């Protein structure tokens, strides 16, 4: 199943200067009872976003119309904890194309990439610069260029290179997914099985 091709984005962004945002916060476990990938965006950050009566909490950033854009900028160690891909579905479903942080948990990083959401790891200094920029002007913009692997703070002109392996970059840019590739390896997999240690 092809994923949506990633194109360069320049947009205002949503700041979330909180560290160690775990996948239980991104999508609480009680929302994992679905058997499809649809509708998770509505429950993104549910317990931070809504009060007990289901009303939006005014102090949470997603409920503040001053902050918009398809890029989420978060504190370090984003996506730790549970392997639930529902977290990536919720972020994609909400409309985010990119998550920026100074550090990502491994499984979340893989899950995001498999859903066409680009995790961009930046330095602490660059991250702080983005938070400063948005504090001054809540429509401050960030530009993410996957082809050249650069991210820019449009307000300050600061720019940084980010890492992504060539294979995954090509998948995102062309909208390929891993399963098509793995299915094409049927013969290699069968050959591997013939020589593998088994008891």
């Amino acid at each position, binding site marked *: *199943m092809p994923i949506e091709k990633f194109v360069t984005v320049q947009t205002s962004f949503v700041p979330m*200067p*909180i*560290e*160690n945002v*775990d996948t*239980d*916060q991104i999508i*609480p*476990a*009680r929302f*994992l*009872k*679905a*058997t*499809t*990938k649809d509708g998770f965006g509505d429950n993104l950050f549910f*317990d931070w976003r809504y009060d*007990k009566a289901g009303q939006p909490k005014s102090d949470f950033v997603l409920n503040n119309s001053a902050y918009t854009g398809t890029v989420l900028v978060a*504190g*370090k*160690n984003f996506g*730790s*904890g*549970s*392997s*639930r*891909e*529902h977290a*990536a579905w919720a972020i994609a479903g909400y409309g985010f194309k990119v998550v920026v942080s100074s*550090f*990502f*948990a*491994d*499984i979340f990083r*893989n*899950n995001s990439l*498999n*859903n066409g959401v680009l995790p961009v790891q930046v330095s*602490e200094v660059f991250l702080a610069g983005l938070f400063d920029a948005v504090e001054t002007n809540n429509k401050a913009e960030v530009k993410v260029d996957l082809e050249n692997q650069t991210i820019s703070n449009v307000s300050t002109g600061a720019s940084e290179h980010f890492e992504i*392996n*060539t*294979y*995954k970059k090509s998948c995102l840019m062309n909208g390929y*997914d*891993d*399963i098509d*590739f*793995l*299915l094409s*390896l*049927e013969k*290699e*997999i069968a050959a*591997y*099985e013939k020589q*593998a*240690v088994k*008891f």
Partner: protein
Amino acid sequence: MGKTLFDKIWDSHVVKTIEDGPNVLYIDRHFIHEVTSPQAFGGIKARGGKVARPDQVIATPDHNIPTINQHLTIQDELSRHQVETLKKNCEENGITMYGLNHPYNGIVHVVGPELGITQPGMTIVCGDSHTSTHGAFGSIAFGIGTSEVEMALATQCIMQPKPKRLRINIEGELAKGVTSKDIILYIIADVSTGGGTGYFVEFAGSAIRGLSMEARMTICNMSIEMGARGGMIAPDETTFEYIKGREQAPKGEQWNKAVNYWKSLCTDEDAVFDKELHYAAEDIEPMITYGTNPGMGAKVRGNIPALETIEDSSKNSFQKSMEYMGFAAGDKIEGKPVDYVFVGSCTNGRIEDLRSFCDAIKGKQKAEGVTAWIVPGSKQVEKQALAEGLKEQLEMAGFELRQPGCSACLAMNDDKIPEGKYAVATSNRNFEGRQGPGSRTLLASPLTAAAAAVTGVVTDPRTIFNF
């Protein structure tokens, strides 16, 4: 140059290497449960494909199931639908499933080892981050997302960048009343929840060698809580002794062949790790968490860190966490009131955990005002607990033995900690709302849980039990 245990197993499972990309890794055993598999089966169906190696896939529903009245239908409609979807997908694809009320049902990471499915040298995945548990047997086992579950179902392979190698050495002898849960909470408190990110961990040293398989599983189970891809322990006589005779263990001549191969699975003396950490077992005391991630842990008889010891950039997150917990920086932890005690989960829901809880509370009574849920990790554990008379022991002390499942670890079933209440839990995560919206979790060992259960407050188990 020699190879690490991790390299030996990983390298022997690489089907193809992609330049500046991930490895195509062959998967020997794939465990599935009801929560993270339906969309993967849906994907396969949408492509018109099929499950490639159904005999290498094992299913058990665990997250959604109730822990009382399991003979009745699951009451929650969405939970029931998810469990029924797993059954249907397994039937359509020829996958063995240990469903609700099956004698082998239970938490997937308890079931695999106790049936002998988990063996040294294997690659094992499951759409569940605590798959790292199986690394206790000297296998490479780790959690994956649902896209990867689909890959593994469709091709028996996944795409994975090779992690770096980290060895954590714990030398010496643990003091009485200190358990493997305390070892892992101590390490995570030291390195933080991101300290292992990018690495695969080998736990080594005399303190690790001296642990039972159950205790080793507890340590490997929580390696994900330091961000590590997984954790593993080289197989030895303790491992072989545990596996021997189990239902799916190799038998006869195959057993001897297997053991010979398993004995080769160790890190060579001259192998090099990307990073090594060293701890002394004697420094480790009963541990407990006070915050909202597993790295926020301290000695039970210690204090919550003072605010001035927290880095400036982390102060906001720390204070948010303290506010959620209803604690203050610098507070003494011992003596904090406890409303709930939960013993169970893939971290500490094995027979040894139930035994140690029961031994500890012998002659004592559950504190008034404490609600305690003692939940076996599987039907096999439940059966063993009944055979050993643990149920009677628990009931005499005012406790109840429930039926197996993930229970209060993650609030997907009926076992939820109410808002604002404090739970000492033997599970693995203390995130906000993990045990139910507004719940406040303090992670600890079964012994520290027992001490809280009989006193009603956070208590160092060494001060009230004789070990």
